[in-house]
């Protein structure tokens, strides 16, 4: 007997050891519960982080665009009457954001905003010989823009450099136009302006539509082609807290009068899915935790009944009610902690196995696994606390046992 341990610890460990089958069954139950929690939580957080990374490294957290143009009814001198009975919604021209340089300066020092990148977007035709494809031409200041959308990470050929006569195209556009690195293509903008640009990089954004439609040129080139010299159509922002993007967007819109759309708003369905995923995970944890707690409690209730004579003898030998209480609380805590350690290992190993087994069609991983140490530590601590909480009622019952009644059994 490790007599350097307090009496409660020794007795708790011995009682668990003596009721071996009971202990093994409840440890298994706790381990399965915790394994489910660890497996689900690690998988969902990995998936979520992966999705967020994909979404937020290919778009700005907040986009500022010029407000829509609206038709204003003309009025006669007679108050209240209108000239036109029907007012059509006006077409939306490609326009620059008024005072965008002022906004860039202001937003650069805005709390929570990390990067401000001006861009000009316009529709255009990419032409090579007899082939032409409609594309979105995005003019960028590469140093700023690449901090928001990490085009260099997606380059499969060449470099992500865009000087005045350079252009970056997607793999699918390059294939359809039959071009490769250093080839030249003609860009004809909707304004009618035309320019011949050299392909300096080919990227793969992992989406066929994006690879076919997206092109990137220098900001000045896009401004010239879209007849917006000195103007920008969009200000792209990144923020430190991605979940605060909508709040910041609302504040920026109120301060500038420019329309500000956060990624949360433009990806409302995705964001709802993320939230739903978090809620369902929380519910799963709660119910699994409850079943674990009730499992531990039921085993300890039975244990108190089985051990009532032992409790009586211990009380006769001078054990205090507090010692008896702690003895059973400890059993609950130990069952929770050891079950959780076992379950965390099984859950983690199960996820690694599942992750290695589940592959995309091309053999690459579906998503990167992220194992947060806090998940494992948290699971063990929470399971320990759950075990103690579950043991509270049986432990109180044991502590309150009348020794005379207990000895009599």
């Amino acid at each position, binding site marked *: *007997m490790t*007599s*350097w341990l*307090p*009496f409660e610890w*020794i*007795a708790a460990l*011995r*009682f668990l*050891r*003596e009721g071996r089958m009971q202990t093994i069954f409840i440890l298994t139950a706790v381990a399965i519960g915790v394994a489910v929690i660890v497996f689900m939580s690690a998988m969902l957080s990995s998936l979520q982080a992966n999705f967020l990374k994909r979404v937020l490294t290919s778009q700005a957290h907040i986009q500022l665009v010029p407000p829509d143009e609206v038709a204003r009814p003309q009025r006669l001198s007679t108050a209240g009457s209108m000239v036109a009975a029907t007012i059509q919604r006006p077409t939306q021209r490609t326009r620059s954001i008024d005072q965008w340089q002022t906004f860039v300066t202001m937003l650069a020092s805005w709390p929570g905003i990390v990067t401000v990148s001006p861009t000009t977007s316009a529709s255009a035709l990419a032409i090579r010989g007899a082939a032409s494809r409609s594309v979105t031409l995005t003019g960028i200041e590469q140093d700023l823009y690449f901090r928001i959308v990490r085009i260099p990470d997606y380059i499969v050929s060449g470099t992500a450099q865009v000087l005045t006569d350079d252009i970056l195209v997607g793999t699918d556009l390059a294939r359809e136009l039959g071009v490769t690195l250093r080839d030249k293509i003609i860009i004809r903008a909707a304004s009618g302006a035309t320019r011949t640009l050299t392909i300096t990089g080919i990227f793969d954004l992992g989406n066929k539509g994006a690879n076919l439609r997206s092109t990137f040129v220098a900001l000045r080139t896009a401004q010239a082609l879209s007849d917006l010299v000195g103007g920008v159509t969009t200000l792209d922002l990144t923020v430190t807290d991605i979940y605060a993007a909508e709040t910041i967007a609302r504040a920026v819109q109120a301060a500038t009068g420019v329309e500000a759309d956060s990624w949360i708003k433009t990806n409302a369905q995705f964001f709802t899915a993320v939230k739903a995923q978090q809620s369902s995970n929380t519910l799963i944890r709660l119910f699994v935790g409850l079943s674990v707690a009730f499992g531990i409690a039921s085993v300890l209730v039975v244990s108190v009944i089985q051990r009532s*004579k*032992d409790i009586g*003898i*211990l*009380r*006769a*030998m*001078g*054990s*205090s*009610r507090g*010692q008896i209480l702690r003895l059973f609380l400890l059993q609950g805590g130990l069952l929770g902690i050891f079950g959780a350690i076992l379950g965390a290992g099984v859950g983690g190993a199960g996820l690694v196995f599942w992750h290695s087994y589940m592959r995309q069609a091309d053999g690459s991983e579906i998503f990167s696994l992220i194992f947060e140490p806090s998940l494992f530590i948290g699971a063990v601590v929470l399971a320990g606390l759950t075990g103690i909480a579950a043991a509270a009622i049986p432990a109180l019952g044991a502590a309150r046992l009348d*020794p*005379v009644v207990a*000895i009599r*059994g």
Partner: protein
Amino acid sequence: MADPEPLLRLEGVCKSYGIGTPVPVEVLHDIDLTLQAGEFIALTGASGSGKSTMLNIIGLLDRPTAGRLIIEGRDTSALDDTDVTSLRGHRIGFIFQHHCLISAFTALENVMMPMLVDKAFPSEAMRVRAHELLAKVGLTKWQDNLANNMSGGQQQRVAIARSLAMKPGLILADEPTGNLDSKSADDVFALMREVNQSEKTTFLIVTHNLDLAARTDRIIDMIDGRIVQSSAEAQANAKA
């Protein structure tokens, strides 16, 4: 010269159950009793005569409804649960008829248990004391056996060793030989007598066995919750 303070005194002790109900039952009636240090006493009586209830009250496992229990000059009615538990742990040892040991522990650990509960003993001191006590009851070879792997007589001997662990002034034994064959019962009884004489520990032994009772210093005989004989007269009757 004044008489020395007795080990224990019961003064007008009554015990009732079902107080507050239409039919309260008094199981002990106005008990007066004095136990002196070093006595070896048998408590006899038919089933339901109140022996176990009185033993529980003397052992501080239960409290009287009326009257006083004074142990070594301390009136226990004034003590709270913590003090009662401490006094019981330090000054009173118990030997039970059934389920006398905790099955999850070995013989040695069972003997160490009261010292472990008390927390006042260094680890090595506990072990040495437990070894000494097991040697005294002749079970050194069995020290590492779990309680379930020992015979009834051996378990009772371990229980005697355990009851001595805290060097109590009083040991209460509730039918300690009731479950044993006559040879084992004789051995256990002889052991208790030997401990009584060597340690000067007071024994109060509940027994139905009049032969064994006759070998004690004094017999307290109970009928219907009252002490009817507490003297050599009872012993003479038992011997007869």
